[in-house]
């Protein structure tokens, strides 16, 4: 087996309670590398089209890559992959922390969870000791309590616990899986998949090793990599304020989603900015596995209605989803809301966005107190937000509807409420706005899992990094490619970034230092991958690009099998029809069609249907997919 891999896949079938250890097929390595790539291959082959994401037939994969568990910067990422309950299409959720590394030390590259247990269980993996343990007494517990209880059961603080909370048990469509309290596999509803299978948690402990092909070369490059992170001024800033630093930037460029994306300017932004929060609330800095940046902040609220709240997070997205998006200019509220989401196990972006949907529909008179069970929804109401989140986690009253996500809620309410549902393919839009940042419009529209900010968000164009842009895309595409208000060349930027991020997600390493700040890119991957694996095929950027293209197209084929075509690569009307009302991007709207056509052309997808062409399947050696349609 090539270096970096453990060479084993662990399967657990909950229906018959049996574990099975398989050899990782060597022939997967070259075309798929690992992580997301392995997950896409396995899910496509093994999942029949049209199955219910919350049914017994769905599978959940926890995947690692060859870099996971090594000393390369930010090597602690893991991905959870499944058919998504929120969208009914491709679902994946990447998460930091230590779970992936521990899985590898236990001896497995992938964990595949299949079938359905009759009774609540937790999956206990301790090296080769594999058990399904009774979790009846843990059902109903919040994620923090389960995690503590399992560590206590095992008498080992180093057990990594991935747990669902009450939201996952009740199959809230955007339920998350929480790793050791505060790292969230948030998006697309992976927690609901575990809940539907009666799996309360997965506990992993490993004492083994990850061995790389050329340790000396690896260590030299890894140490250089860490120094690049440690000396990068933006990374240094992130170690202080994490992603909160974005708030001031987004406000300045008029892209801080406010009042359910009605505008990009929020008057109360200052109280949500990093410089404001850190000196007042932050009591500790933390990092995920192997990370020299450490963007995680432990925060404490001393006074006010939420006094005593101690929790990691929220990220920028949390400040957006529970702050500006709802008109709330108070960090304490966002921290409390974040804590409730962590404990119940719910995605912050979808939760905030679904609540914003309801508030706007109410404020504009499309729904009334009859729909909300007597609640008078309004912008900026802090206590109401906390109450609504708890109602969603419990699926209680109006929370029952909101637990379905904004798309389903709008479908069932009707009355034109769909124009307030900010989603693509059923997944709520993250904290960006295509009107002031054209490339993210294309990214949101084409993302395999819906309105996604992690698979192709180009940051270099938005912040005008001429030098990086020239190096990546060539001087001939400037200045248009870094002009956030034009559609021109945006497909090139998205295509190339999405490819690099694909490789990032197969290694697997963190979004930060790859996507932002720009420290590592394809040429670095082309160096570290051969050192790790011994596979020289990975030393050429064009080969990595082909692997990435294969992966994007494979996910597209997965979605095509579920009925996705060009018509679904769309945006909420708000971004394409309502001009940005204020700020530097005043008057801007998105013209999606030309970007889509450019993007399809680059991807080799049909311009009319948006589906991969016969030639593309051939070029990317994806003809095998036809046998599984």
């Amino acid at each position, binding site marked *: 087996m090539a270096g970096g891999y453990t060479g084993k896949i662990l399967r657990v079938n909950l229906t018959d309670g049996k574990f099975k250890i398989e050899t990782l097929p060597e022939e997967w390595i070259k075309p798929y590398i690992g992580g997301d790539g392995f997950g896409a291959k396995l899910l496509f082959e093994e999942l029949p089209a049209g199955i219910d994401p919350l049914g017994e037939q769905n599978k959940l994969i926890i995947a690692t890559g060859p870099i996971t*568990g*090594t*000393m390369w910067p930010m090597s602690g990422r893991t991905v959870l992959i499944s058919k998504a309950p929120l969208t009914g299409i491709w679902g994946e959720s990447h998460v930091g922390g*230590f779970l992936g590394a521990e899985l590898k*030390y236990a001896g497995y590259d992938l964990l595949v969870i299949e079938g359905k247990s009759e009774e609540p269980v937790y999956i206990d993996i301790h090296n080769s000791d594999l058990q399904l343990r009774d979790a009846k007494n843990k059902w109903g517990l919040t994620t*923090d309590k389960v*995690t*503590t209880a399992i560590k206590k059961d095992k008498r080992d*603080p*180093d057990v990594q616990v991935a747990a669902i909370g009450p939201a996952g048990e009740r199959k809230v469509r955007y339920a998350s899986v929480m790793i*050791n*309290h*505060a790292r969230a596999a948030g998006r697309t509803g992976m927690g609901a998949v575990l809940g539907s299978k009666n799996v309360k948690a997965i506990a992993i402990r*490993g*004492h*083994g*090793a*990850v*061995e*790389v092909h050329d*340790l000396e070369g690896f*260590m030299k490059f890894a*140490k250089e990599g*860490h120094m690049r*992170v*440690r000396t990068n001024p933006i990374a240094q800033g992130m170690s202080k304020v994490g992603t909160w630093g974005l708030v001031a930037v987004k406000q300045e460029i008029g892209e801080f989603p406010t009042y359910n994306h009605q505008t990009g300017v929020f008057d109360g932004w200052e109280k949500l900015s990093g410089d404001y929060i850190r000196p007042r609330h932050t*009591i*500790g*800095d*933390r*990092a*995920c*596995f*192997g*990370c*020299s*940046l*450490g963007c*995680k902040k*432990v925060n*404490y609220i001393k006074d006010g*209605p*939420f*006094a*005593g*709240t*101690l929790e*990691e997070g929220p990220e920028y997205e949390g400040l957006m989803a529970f702050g500006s998006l709802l008109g709330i200019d108070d960090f304490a509220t966002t921290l*409390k809301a974040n804590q409730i989401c962590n404990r119940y196990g719910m995605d912050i972006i979808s939760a905030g966005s679904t609540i914003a949907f309801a508030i706007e529909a109410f404020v504009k008179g499309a729904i009334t107190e009859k729909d909300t069970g007597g609640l008078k929804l309004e912008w900026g109401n802090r206590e109401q937000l906390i109450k609504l989140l708890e109602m969603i986690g419990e699926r209680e009253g109006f929370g029952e509807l909101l637990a379905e996500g904004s798309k389903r809620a709008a479908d069932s309410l009707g009355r034109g409420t769909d124009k307030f549902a900010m989603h693509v393919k059923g997944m709520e839009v993250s904290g960006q706005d295509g009107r002031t940042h054209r490339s993210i419009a294309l990214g949101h529209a084409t993302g395999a899992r819906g309105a996604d900010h992690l698979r192709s968000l180009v940051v270099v164009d938005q912040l005008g990094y001429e030098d990086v842009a020239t190096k990546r895309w060539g001087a001939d595409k400037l200045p248009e490619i870094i002009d956030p208000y034009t559609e021109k060349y945006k497909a090139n930027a998205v295509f190339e970034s999405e490819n690099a991020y694909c490789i990032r997600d197969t290694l697997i390493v963190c979004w930060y230092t790859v996507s932002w700040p720009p420290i590592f890119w394809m040429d670095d991957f082309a160096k570290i991958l051969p050192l790790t694996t011994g596979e020289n095929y990975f030393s050429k950027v064009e080969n990595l690009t082909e692997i990435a293209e294969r992966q994007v197209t494979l996910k597209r084929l997965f979605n095509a099998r579920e009925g996705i075509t060009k018509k679904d690569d769309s945006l909420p009307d708000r971004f394409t029809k309502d001009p940005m009302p204020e700020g530097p991007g005043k008057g801007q709207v998105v013209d999606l069609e030309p970007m889509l056509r450019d993007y399809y052309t680059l991807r080799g997808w049909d311009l009319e249907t948006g589906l991969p062409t016969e030639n593309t399947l051939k070029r990317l050696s994806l003809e095998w997919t036809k046998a599984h349609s």
Partner: protein
Amino acid sequence: MSDIIDHEVVYLPSQLIVDFSKCTGCRICELACSAKHEGKFQPSLARLKIIRYDDLGLDIPNVCGPCETAPCVDICPVFAMRRDPITKMTYLDEDMCILCKSCVGACVNGVILLDTVKMRIIKCDHCGGDPECAKVCPTGAITYGPDTSLATVDRHGKILGYLKEIERTDKVHGTGAE
């Protein structure tokens, strides 16, 4: 802790100094240590240990020393665990070790390990005076060098300090607005 009798109090020329308030719990030190001494990434065989309290948001590095009185040396029945006369670093003479594991239990930092695969005691040697962990630590939570006696004299007091810190945060944790 006042009843601990100092069998042998020595001046330590250089030592690993830990500032837990800086530690982010990234475990790069464990990775680098296992890579250097075992040739692979295997934190379970690292000569130091980061304990992460995820519920409190606190990370505490446990390293070898500083021990002015070294329980591992005191307890070893066959004098396999000794102090280097010059560096004052405690070290294990593997040839003499009878694998009784007394030192594993005696270490106040919990960083002496039994490798159950190769059946040997694993113990930090400060990388011969050039500790890898201190070099890779991105936050300065582990440093190496001579320090004032204030920082080293009361090892046990320091651990008590850690425990108090946990208790303090615990109290904070317990008064959540739930």
